[in-house]
């Protein structure tokens, strides 16, 4: 398939140029995926699918468009490309649109990023079913008589893609992936039926935890929500658990992109080189970590991947600026999107930190909420545990935190030792002081 993809992309570029395009970039991809879920100890859903597609970016007379197709027959593609080039000419001219300067393609690392499981093709239907059953059994056993419903699931797949540009770039990637998950709903007081999930994701199956542990995690998280209440509005220290830091941090991250800066929608636009968080925050974009979910050797512009320190001890060092917005901003480009994001872990566990904090909230989930990328204002509902001297004393629901990203990150006081492995944002749990938690 790999050589077929290269041959088709090269042919497509030739056809686009013959149709009048000044330049073009083609992406070709294919994926096969299998999903299985169990409930009540029997399959609930089984789904299998293969998909394929081709995308085309056209640059003609200073104009630009993108389009996609799954019909990869050459006669159909030839017609597709010809009409695409002709119609692109009807759009307004955009002097900033072009393929990147090829100098940014150079310097690509040649590394094995550990994204392909060599045993994927031998995975049998029986093994898939056994994996899901084990997740379900783990959850049922841990949830005991509190269980109303458990849904356990597995998704696995293989994908490959090629990106080729008419000015000399080509890059091929392939990956396998495995997901195990469980969701438990339990019987609480009255009509409340708390539910939580456990999940694990990896490129290689051996990097997943034992399946029963995924189920046990879901059950423990669900049971921890029993008896949840809200209490009086209070200013408290909060710990945001590792697996939900990315959701909260996304409100900050969204202001670091070139488009938002150029379109005057970023509260960080004029903050480069300034202290935007406490010195406890260092944020590193590292594309080369083997097996990490965001690892890559090149980005969607074809830029060779580089490790970058985005925030250094609270000082904003870099933005995510792709080729197009670098030209609009007259800035040097970096990359248009994050790879694997790291906040370097410290030494103490969440449990150790909780003991020293006195009274506070461990936030294990968010609900609703949003963040304004133009002003930095944010407000979001929380789920978690109120604790005193390290001991959880009350599950929390219907409460909320609100702040401004330029202020709350200045109150980051500690980083835990538990980077979350099942995301491209490998963040540890974070501790903030003096957060208004609104409730009754």
């Amino acid at each position, binding site marked *: 398939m790999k050589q077929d993809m290269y041959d088709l992309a090269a042919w497509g570029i030739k056809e686009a140029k013959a149709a009048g395009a000044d330049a073009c970039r083609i992406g070709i991809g294919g994926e096969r995926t299998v999903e299985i879920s169990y409930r009540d100890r029997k399959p609930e859903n089984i789904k299998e699918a293969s998909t394929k597609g081709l995308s085309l970016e056209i640059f003609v007379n200073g104009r630009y468009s993108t389009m996609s197709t799954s019909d990869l027959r050459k006669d159909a593609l030839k017609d597709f490309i010809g009409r695409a080039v002709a119609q692109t000419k009807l759009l307004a001219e*955009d002097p900033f649109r072009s393929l990147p300067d090829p100098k940014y393609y150079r310097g690509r690392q040649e590394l094995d990023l550990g994204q392909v499981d060599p045993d994927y093709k031998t995975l049998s239907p029986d093994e898939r079913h056994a994996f899901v059953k084990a997740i379900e059994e783990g959850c049922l056993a841990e949830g005991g008589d509190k269980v109303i419903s458990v849904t356990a*699931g597995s998704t696995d797949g293989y994908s490959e893609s090629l990106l080729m540009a008419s000015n000399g770039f080509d890059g091929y990637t392939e990956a396998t992936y495995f997901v195990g998950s469980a969701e438990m709903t339990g019987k609480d007081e009255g009509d409340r039926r708390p539910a939580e999930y456990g999940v694990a994701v990896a490129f290689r199956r051996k990097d997943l935890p034992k399946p029963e542990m995924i189920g046990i995690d879901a059950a423990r998280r669900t049971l921890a929500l029993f008896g949840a209440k809200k209490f009086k509005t209070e200013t408290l220290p909060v710990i945001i658990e590792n697996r939900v830091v990315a959701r909260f941090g996304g409100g900050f991250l969204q202001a670091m992109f070139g488009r938002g800066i150029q*379109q005057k929608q970023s509260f960080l636009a004029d903050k480069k080189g300034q202290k935007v968080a406490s010195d406890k925050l260092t944020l590193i974009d590292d594309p080369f970590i083997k097996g990490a979910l965001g690892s890559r050797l090149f980005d969607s512009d074809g830029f060779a991947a580089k490790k970058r320190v985005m925030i250094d001890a609270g000082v904003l060092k870099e933005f995510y600026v792709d080729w197009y917005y670098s030209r609009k901003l007259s800035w040097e480009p970096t990359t248009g999107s994050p790879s694997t994001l790291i906040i370097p872990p410290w030494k103490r566990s969440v449990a150790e930190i909780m003991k020293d904090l006195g009274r506070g909230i461990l936030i294990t989930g968010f609900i609703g909420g949003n963040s304004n990328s133009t002003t930095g204002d944010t*407000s979001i509902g929380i*789920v978690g545990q109120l604790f005193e001297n390290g001991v959880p004393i009350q599950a929390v629901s219907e409460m909320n935190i609100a702040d401004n990203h330029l202020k709350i990150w200045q109150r980051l006081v500690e980083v835990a030792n538990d980077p979350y492995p099942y995301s491209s944002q490998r963040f540890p749990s974070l501790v903030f002081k003096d957060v208004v938690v*609104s409730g009754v």
Partner: protein
Amino acid sequence: MTTISRRSFLKTGATAAAVSVAAPALNKGWYGLAGADAGADVQGYFEREFGISDAVCRKILAEGLAKGGDYADLYFEHTISNYLILEDGKVNRAYSDIALGVGIRTVKGDQVGYGFTQELAEKSMLAAAATAATIAAGAAKGPARNFAQLKTADYYPLKTLFTAVPIERKLPLVQTVNDRCFALSPLVVKVNAQFHDQQKRILVVTSDGVKAEDLQPRTYLAAGVVAEKNGKRERAGWNFGGRRDFSYFTPAIIDEIAKTAVNRTLVLFDAVQPPAGEMPVVLGPGVTGVLLHEAIGHGLEADFNRKKISTYCTMIGKKVAEPFVTIVDDGTQPNLLGSINVDDEGTPGQKTVLVDKGILTSYIHDKISAKFYGVKPTGNGRRQSYQHYPIPRMRNTYMEAGPATPEDVIKAAGKGIYVQDVSNGEVKIGEGDFAFFVSQGRMIENGKLDAPIKDVNIMGNGPKMLANTTMVAGDFQFNQGGTGACGKDGQAAPCGFGQPTILVKSLTVGGTRS
């Protein structure tokens, strides 16, 4: 990934143009469809264009039932989506996508096997059907010998297909809304505008002998505005759309979009920090119906109830609200985003009363849940595309008008929050806890509207919120937007909502002033 029980409503602003490598598409797009389309005639489209005859359908369904499934259905889809995008004063970006494929579902009890293919060749479809069939393990069954064409109403009649409108007529819409925004205020510094049109053609064929076809349009024109005043920036936007055709976008509609987007941005310069804590909340008419979507709509989707994982699963027939509260999920409202002539498993679009004068009367059903409960399907079996199997989904969910006046409702609140616009929400089905994000609102002081507020999350519990709805006004409005999408189990579906002004006597407001 398997289900996560938090369901979310996303009112998307502008869809970014992007390369979509894995997206299914064909060789048609925004760039030249005039004359390339089969026309507005809905019936027989897939047979004319792709040779999908009754005989082919029967063969595929037979394969889907080859291992003893109770039921099987086919969902053919051909969707053409186009986007024109303006940034920095010019329409200089376009994106198109075409989805073509068929999904084959086999049902055994409440178990579902599913396969799909992007190739409408018999061999590929039979292979997908064989995958779906594996959910069962028994003797083969046969599909119906004949398929009866389902006759449906038309809740979104089209004068012209979008594919017959040349790009030269679409471009001025986007340019005009941009120019209007800049003309309205010198404080406007950036405008992002976007025009979207979509034609989704579907054919549903079921093993029990139903054949249904539909052409579902979707469109919007949206403007996002950034304004600057005394070194401070604010951003807001507005859109109109729904299941409409090109003739909807009159100069008056374009003006209204621009005026609303600019006015909603400028008012934010006067916004104050909202308080934190429990207080009365008044929801203004229209878009605030997102509250119902989260607080009750998702919880009444019958798949959650047959699994007993919804907080509402024991409440049918019980009083859940005051007698002046009636809540409806309705696929029959003309041109609204959530309207459907037929759902994605061949049940006609219809109106379903969920709460009738305070009594919980119905869940939202697909065929599987309807069979479980022994009731008729309510026409809510919907899906994102042929790549997904149908599940119970809302259409247009709203609360009917009540006896109060908006002024009385605000006066009765005394001191609290008035919600004018909501951008997104989320619910935890089992607990009934929900949140919605208020992008625009006002303080209520001494029973009157006061300073503007913005960007505040409001939390509550669905059953408690219903019980605490103490006043409903007569100023009902439907939201007329075209960008709303509801997320559930990894599937997005267009939906609508509406509401009159209502008073909820207590919700948690997530402000910053303690």
